[in-house]
Structures are given as C-alpha cells and as structure tokens.
C-alpha cells in the first residue's frame, strides 16, 4: 500500500520524487486512480476496515448472549420451578433471580448500543476521510488534464462528478467492510442460535436464502445498467444548463428559448423514462424479496407449531426462535440493501474514474517536484521538426526555428496558420505530437514545471483571473509554494497540527495555506514594501495604475490596521480644503460642519451626520429605524416631516401623473416609484378626507420616508425652510448624544479630525458634499484631489487600497481591457526569462498597444519576448520575425530582410 501523503515540505529528494530522469513515457511514481471501488477501499483503508470489523466481532458474543437471555428469563425465571437458583455462586429466590436476569438484559442492551455507537463513529470518519481523498485525487487529476481535453469536456459535466456524484460513496466506503461483516456476523449468530435450538427450524429459516442469492443479482444487473445510463443523462443535463448560462446572450438574441425549452423537456423526459423503469424493476426486486422473506415465518408457524404440539420443542424455544428470526430478518434485509448500495456505488465510482484518466496527463512528479535550485534559462530555444496534431488535424508540421534568449521575436501569420499553437507549445501548454523543443540543452517537456512555470510567462488572448482581490491576482504568478512558515500561538498550533495530521491521513497535500506563499525574490524584491513598489511600477507598464488609483479612491481603508496611512489621508483632507479656498473654489464642496445644515446633502444624511457602518442606519431604511423615529418624536420633527412628505407626494403626483410607467424620468427624478404612485394617490385621498393626523401609521411612515431624500438645490421644492434646518440640527445633536451603546458601532460620525473607516477614501478626503448646480463640479473636484494626492505623495496609498478591490468571479468586475492588463502585469511581475504574449493585446487601442509594446520591450531588454501578433505591421521593430502559413514556417529573419515586395510578410502587412 502506498499510502503516503504528498509531503512537499520534505527535502526534494524524498522517495516520491526520486526520479533520476523523469519522462512522460515512464510510469508516474504515483499510481493512477484505482479502477475498482474495492481496489480503492483496500489500498487506502484496509487497516481501518479491519479495525472496524474486529470491533464488530468483539461485539458479537454480547449480542448472542442478549438473544439467549429472553429464553432463560421465560423458561427458568418465569416458568421455572427449581428455586433457589444458582447464579455465579449466589443462591437466589425466584423474584430476585428474575430481577437480576432483567438487570443483565438491560446492561446488555446498553453494551450493544455502545458498540454500535463506537463502530458507527469509526465508519463515518473513515467514510469522510476516503471521500476527502477521492475528491482530492479527482481535483488533482483535473489539474493534470492535458489542455485539449478541456475542449472536449465541459465544467458542467466535471463539477458534479467531484461534488455531488461521489458524495454517497463516502457513506458506502465507511460501510464497505463493517456493514457486511456485522450483518453476516449477526446473521451467522442468529442462524447458529437457531440451529442450536432446532436444526430443522434453522434450515427452514435459511432455506430460501440461496434462491434470493441467485435471483436478486440477476434482476439487479438490469437496474445497474439503467443506473449507469441515468448518471450519464444527468451529467449531460448539467452540461446543458451550463451551456445555456454561457450562451444566454445567443439564446435571447436569437429568440431560441422555445427550442431550448423543448430540448430540455426532452432530456427531462428521458431521465423520467429511465427513472420510471428503475423504479419498476427496483420495486419488483423489493416485492420478490418481501415475498420470499414472508415465506419463512410460514414455515415457522407450520413446522414449529407442529413440533411444539407433538412435544419435541418447548413453547419457550419457539418464541425465542421467532425472536431470533425477527433479528435474522433485519441483518438479511440490511445485506440485501447493502448489495444494492454496493452495486450503485461501484457504478458511480467506475463511471467517475474513467472520466478522470484521459491520455496525455501531465506527469505527477514533474508537476510537483521542487528542485533545490531553479537556474535561469539561458542559451537558445531550439524547435526541431515539431508537429502538432489536434483532433486528427495537423495544426503544425515540420516546424524548426532557433530563438536566442536575449532577442525579441514576433510571430505572425493569418488566423489558423498555427502561430498561436507555437506560442502555447513554447509555454508548454501543449505537448508536441512529434519533434523536440529544447532550451539550452534541456528538453522543455522534461523539465519540472517548477522551472518552466517560474521562468516562462505566458499571456493568452483572454485573461484567466480568479475571484479574489486585485493584489492576489497580480501576485498569482509568484505563489508557487510557501516561502516561510505561518506563525501560530500554542492553541492555533495544536489546531493546525490536527488539521495537518488529518490531511495526511486522507492523502491530501500538507502545505499551509496560511503561510506566506509570495516569492519576493522572483519579483526582484527583498521585502513586502519593495515588492509593493515593484508592483506599482509594473502597473505603470500597462497603464493600469490609473485604473487602480480610481478603484482605490472608491475603496476603504482600515485606520486601525494602517494608522499612519489614515493620518496622511487626513492631511490630504486639510490640504484639499486649503486648495479650495486658495483657488476660490470653496463653492464646489460644502464641507461637513456639525453646527450647520449641509444643503447639498440629503435631509437624511443631515440627520445622521455620519456614515452607516452596516444596514442598521442605511439611507433607504433610515426613516424606519426605531431609534431615529424616537429622536424625531423627541424634537417634534415627525409631524413636520410627514407634512413635507405630503407636499412631496402631491408634487410628484402632479408632475409625473401623465408619464408612462416605463419612462426614464421615473428612475431619474421621481421620489416615488411608478408602481407606488397609485398607493400615494390613495394616501393623498385619505389625507383629504380624514386629515393627516388620523392617517394609519403605515401611511404616515411612507410619507415620512419621502423628505429624507430631499436635497434642496437639486430638487428645488422649497420645503426645507430655515425652521426645519434648525430642528434637523437639533435632532442631529439629540441623535448623537443619546445614541445607545449597542448602536454606537453602527455609525461613524463625521469628524473633521478623524478618519472615517466606513467611508471611501474619496469621501474622507472630500469631507463634504460636491455642490449641485456648479457646472463640471465633479470633474473639477476629481482633478483637485488628484493634484493634492500627487503633491503629498499619497497616490501609492490610494493604489494600495485599490489593490484590495475584489474583482469578482473570473474578474467580472473589471472591464475586458483591465483584465488583459492585469494578466500582462502578472506575467511581467515574475521577471520571466521568456515572456510569451499570444495575441495578448488584441483588445487594446492602437496607440495604447504601441505604447505598451514599447514599455514591455524596454522592461524585458536582454531577455526573451515571443510575441504572437494579430497585426503583422507591429512586428517591424522586433529583432526577428517568424512567419507562419498553413502550419509551417514560411519565412524567418530580421524584419528588414523580409520586407521584399513578394514576401509573405509583406503580403500580410499590406492585407491589413
């Protein structure tokens, strides 16, 4: 049994990796997935299975005795005549004897239950470990799939295999030995007990077992086949749903919903058919089982009764046998169910495993081997007679070229000429079908991935990003293995050790996710601060720094974690205020002042005078907040606000009465949603009839909410009078002074001398509202902020906050252009010896592309760039050009030498 965990923090020469000359053709030192479920179970859990079985065996005598005891109680204690009876040397009368036996019976119940509990826990734990191991191995196999395999398999099929399909296997594996063992044991015990009572009755009890054992598997086989079919159909259903989600744009744009629905209905129909047939057959098996099971009692009553009547069997014995038979039926039924479960699990396992062993998987050792040293790649890339075949199509044929590792090479050609595949072959993403690629004197495809993945960078046409912060995505290319240990206190350490032990038990990788994985040296930095400086520099190459700066202004900073940064931003707040007054631009921003009503903020913001930390005081629900309501009541503002609400509602009803409900003005200008207008008309009507004071509380609340959104210079309704402002200020003070302790953490009050953790960087620097009605105010303020931050040398802090931006699943919260820029920055950051760009700038504007090209080439001066281009004219400045046509290199050399009018290169350039 090779039950080793993947111990990567061991020395590189650990036995798992002691491969002198690893080659993809040699068998990997790690055996492939077991083909059969029991193979997998035996290989990884035999000792545990034996332990469970042993415990089960130990429990059997107790069980046997607990079966025998009722007979003793009836025959000797209740119906017995010879007293005092002897028990363990004591002489007991009938009643004490009965009580002692009953006491023993109770103790046995307890002991049997205890055994059951313990073995159940053991089985459950084993099942979970094995499930964990299986999932880990499956996932690891996915990471080793050859790239073209992903074109044939969809995530919709693979994901459910790892998540839901294998789930029941955990339960089964825990039971794989234990359950049949315990039930066979119980069955044997019960049968033995019966034979002891009467061989005839024993024979009767098991007479039908051979019949069941013969017929049931036969019937089951057909059910199994249907089960396989069902799994496949469900998988293709999952795939179909995945495809529909991916192609939702096409489905809408082509009005294809009906076709999709029909297709889906047909699939569901097939699943129904299969399921229905499974049910029919499965329940028939059940029916047959039950019938055969009930035949046995028939024998007992007839034969047993006959024997009792003729006097060759005591009534007590028959009762005990019937009792034992009841216990017999249990294990037998369990065994039959187990058989069905086993078959079901076997099919699931085999069907999953066969999907996870495609040909051409990446070698296990090459993937995880950690060489002691990773030398830089030097010399020349030599491509010798390389062919690449995909789906029986020859994509590349007889390709030979040499690329010195200090040159910048452009690869051009028409779409489908094979140029992209060359880029991927050089990045080792594809494996040549023939020929060799060597770097220096090493075969590219025999190097450990630790070398190629760190020394070669590849950026494809569409960036693959992960759901994490921008920073994590940029540092992705530097995180190959932990570079240090995480620090733990004693309690955490114990917890970590337990987790580690458990991971090893399940054959999972034992690297610590909490450790620092960032390889500073790879980025040419020695510390986190140096890396950050380097990162910001790298952002500049693709002009991503501007984007990140803007994200940073919208982001938040935790002043507790970064007090000095918060202090510097407060400096920016002061500097901005100075700038505004110096340049006579105070009109642009109305600063927050605890003693003054801020006319450019909403009435709600003026009441709160702070930033809500969570949803408790959020703007939309502020009017409903009980504490806010009590404050408004206290200062007598409620009635005025309801009256204002009435006026707002009336104005809205008048203004928007004739607009259709889908008109954009509703969205842009109205205080009331189009759908709610009729409600408000009702409230206004009731107000006219019974007066505002007699309106229902719900109506009053709806009115109360309206003025919270009022901004006088924007809405110009003339409702916020001086008197109202005065009272709002009063309410603001009451709100802050009386704020209960439990609500205090829910709000960050505006305080000119304090950094506001709940507000964005920009809001903190502004410390006020941008004025409405001042032309271009937003842009002018933005420019001013930028000036102030540059002057104070604070842009870096903003960019660092911007790097915390969560980019969403596959980077969906970034634009496609930004995603591509991130991918390029990520590649540059690891300072690769070879940078391969495979049409990586296709989404860039022409001037930006030219600028980025120039900067990238400056950055990688003296190192190798292989740039697969969509536009041949861009190749002119490169050291060398390789021209592809129909899978072959047709021209290569310096751009100047290829410029002849009849060359393919010239033709490509002219065609643009």
């Amino acid at each position, binding site marked *: 049994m090779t039950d080793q965990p993947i111990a990567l923090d061991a020395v590189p020469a650990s036995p798992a990796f002691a491969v002198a000359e690893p080659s993809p053709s040699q068998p990997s030192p790690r055996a492939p997935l077991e083909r059969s479920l029991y193979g997998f179970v035996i290989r990884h859990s035999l000792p545990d299975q034996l332990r469970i079985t042993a415990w089960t065996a130990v429990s059997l005598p107790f069980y046997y005795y607990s079966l025998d005891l009722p007979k003793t109680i009836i025959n000797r204690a209740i119906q017995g005549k010879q007293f005092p009876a002897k028990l363990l040397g004591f002489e007991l009368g009938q009643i004490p004897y009965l009580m002692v036996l009953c006491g023993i019976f109770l103790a046995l119940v307890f002991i049997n239950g205890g055994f059951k509990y313990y073995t159940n826990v053991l089985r459950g734990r084993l099942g979970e470990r094995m499930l964990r191991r299986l999932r880990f191995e499956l996932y690891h196999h996915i990471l080793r799939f050859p790239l073209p395999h992903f074109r044939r398999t969809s995530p919709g099929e693979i994901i459910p295999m790892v998540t839901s399909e294998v789930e029941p296997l955990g339960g089964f594996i825990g039971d794989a030995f234990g359950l049949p063992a315990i039930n066979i044991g119980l069955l044997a015990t019960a049968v033995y007990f019966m034979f002891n009572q009467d061989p005839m009755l024993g024979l009767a009890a098991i007479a039908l077992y051979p019949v069941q054992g013969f017929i049931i598997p036969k019937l089951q086989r057909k059910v199994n086949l249907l089960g396989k079919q069902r799994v496949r159909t469900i998988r293709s259903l999952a795939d179909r749903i995945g495809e529909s989600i991916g192609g939702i744009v096409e489905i809408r744009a082509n009005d294809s919903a009906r076709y999709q629905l029909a297709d889906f209905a047909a699939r569901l129909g097939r699943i129904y058919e299969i399921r229905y047939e499974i049910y029919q057959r499965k329940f028939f098996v059940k029916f047959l089982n039950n019938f055969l099971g009930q035949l046995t009692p028939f024998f007992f009553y007839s034969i047993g009764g006959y024997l009792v009547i003729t006097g060759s069997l005591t009534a007590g014995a028959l009762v005990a046998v019937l009792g034992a038979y009841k216990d017999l039926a249990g294990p037998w039924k369990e065994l039959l169910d187990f058989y069905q479960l086993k078959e079901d699990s076997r099919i699931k396992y085999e069907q999953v495993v066969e999907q996870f062993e495609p040909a051409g998987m990446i070698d296990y050792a090459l993937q995880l081997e950690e060489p002691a040293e990773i030398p830089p790649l030097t010399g020349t890339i030599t491509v010798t007679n390389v062919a690449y075949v995909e789906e029986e199509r020859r994509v590349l044929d007889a390709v030979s070229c040499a690329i010195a590792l200090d040159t910048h090479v452009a690869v051009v050609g028409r779409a489908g000429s094979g140029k992209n595949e060359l880029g991927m072959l050089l990045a080792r993403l594809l494996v040549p079908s023939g020929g060799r690629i060597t770097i220096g004197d090493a075969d590219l495809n025999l190097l450990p991935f630790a070398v190629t993945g760190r020394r070669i960078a590849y950026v494809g046409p569409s960036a693959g990003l992960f759901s994490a912060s921008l920073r994590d995505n940029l540092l992705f290319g530097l995180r190959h293995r932990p570079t240090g240990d995480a620090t733990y206190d004693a309690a955490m350490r114990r917890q970590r050790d337990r987790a580690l032990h458990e991971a090893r038990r399940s054959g999972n990788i034992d690297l610590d996710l909490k450790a620092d994985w960032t390889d500073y040296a790879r980025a040419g930095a020695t510390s986190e601060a140096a890396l950050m400086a380097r990162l910001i520099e790298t952002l500049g190459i693709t002009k991503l720094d501007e984007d990140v700066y803007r994200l940073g202004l919208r982001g938040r900073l935790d002043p507790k974690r970064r007090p000095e940064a918060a202090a510097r931003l407060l400096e920016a707040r002061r500097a901005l205020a100075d700038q505004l007054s110096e340049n006579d631009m105070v*009109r642009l921003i109305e600063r927050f002042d605890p003693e003054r009503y801020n006319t450019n903020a909403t009435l709600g913001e003026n009441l709160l005078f702070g930033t809500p930390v969570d949803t408790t005081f959020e703007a939309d629900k502020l009017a409903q907040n009980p504490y806010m309501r009590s404050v408004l009541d206290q200062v007598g503002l409620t009635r005025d606000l309801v009256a204002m609400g009435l006026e707002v509602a009336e104005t809205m009803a008048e203004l928007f009465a004739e607009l259709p409900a889908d008109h954009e003005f509703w969205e842009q*200008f109205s205080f009331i949603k189009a759908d709610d207008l009729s409600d408000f008309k009702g409230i206004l009507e009731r107000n006219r009839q019974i007066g505002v004071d007699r309106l229902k509380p719900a109506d009053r609340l709806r009115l109360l909410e309206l003025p919270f959104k009022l901004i006088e210079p924007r*809405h*110009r309704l003339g409702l916020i009078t001086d008197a109202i402002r005065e009272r709002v200020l009063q309410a603001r003070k009451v709100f802050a002074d009386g704020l209960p302790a439990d609500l205090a953490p829910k709000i960050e009050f505006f305080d000119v001398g304090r950094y506001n953790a709940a507000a964005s960087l920009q809001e903190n620097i502004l410390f006020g509202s941008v004025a409405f009605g001042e*032309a271009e105010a937003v842009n002018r303020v933005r420019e001013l902020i930028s000036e102030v931050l540059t002057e104070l040398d604070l842009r870096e802090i903003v960019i660092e906050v911007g790097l915390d931006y969560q980019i969403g699943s596959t980077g969906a919260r970034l634009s496609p252009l930004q995603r591509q820029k991130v991918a390029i920055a990520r590649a540059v950051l690891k300072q690769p010896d070879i940078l391969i760009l495979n049409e990586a700038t296709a989404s860039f504007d022409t001037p930006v592309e030219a600028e980025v090209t120039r900067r990238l080439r400056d950055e990688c001066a003296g190192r190798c760039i292989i740039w697969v281009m969509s536009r041949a004219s861009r190749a002119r400045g490169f050291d060398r050009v390789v021209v592809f046509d129909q899978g072959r290199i047709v021209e290569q050399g310096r751009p100047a030498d290829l410029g002849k009018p009849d060359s393919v290169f010239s033709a490509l350039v002219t065609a643009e």
Partner: protein
Amino acid sequence: MSLKEEVELLRQIPLFAQIEPARLKLLAFTSERLSYEPGQVLCRQGDMGDAAYIVIEGTADVLVNSANGPITVATLGPNDFVGEIAILCDVPRTATVQAVSRLVVLRIAKELFFRLLSEFPSMAVTMLREIAHRLEVTTTQLRGSVAEVQALRLAHPS
C-alpha cells in the same frame, strides 16, 4: 430659487409662453440648474450636443472658430435660448458658448426637449419662427460679407 420661481421665469420666455404650467413645472424639475464661473465653457464647437440651455442670470459669448482664432458672433443674456441646433439636427455644436460673467442656466436634456416639441406644436412653431429669424439675420450678414469681399477684390485685383 425654488421650482415655482423657475416656472415663472420660464413663462417669461416666448418659446414656452403657450405651455401649461404643470408641464413647465416638469420641465423645470427635470432640468438641471447650473452655475458657471466666468470663462467656463458650456459647450464646445465640434462636440456632439446633448442639451440646450436657457440663460437665467449673467451673460455668455457665442464664439465661432476662424483662421484667426475664435470670433464672438453673439452675446447671450437672460431668457436667451441656445444650443438647440445641435440637438435638433444631430450635428456637432456649431459654436462654442462661454460664460462672460457668473452665469446661471437651465440645462434641458435633449430627450425632454424633443418630447416637448412633439407634444406642443405651438412650441415647435415658435421655435421655427425663432430659427427662421436667425437664418434671416445670418443671410443678411452673409450678403453683407460677400459684398465686402467683392469690394475688396475690386480694390486689390491680383
């Protein structure tokens, strides 16, 4: 200034004289009231237009680019209407408008402006009259310019 005052102001403008007060109120409510500093530009010649402006307070110059730099072709004051050509014909701005003093305007978005024109034919007629009048003025100026150019040619035959 409140919405009610703005409605009063709009009623003073001949273009809107025929429109009922409720409509004018919606126009005022959905339009932005903007202040410009002296020297700030409302719209630039050549840009695509998305709004028209009514001057409420202050003055602005209408400038047209020429070989010798921008020339002031008109000066706007309160109640003047500007910027409608570009949004009517979907052509780039024909002139630059620049604030001379502190300027307050009402900015009417293109969409709203079209809506008003289609709903109130009287407004369209007023607008037509206004534009015809401007064309008349422009043509007169052009005629004068052509005569001047010819006079100059006669005086300095090449």
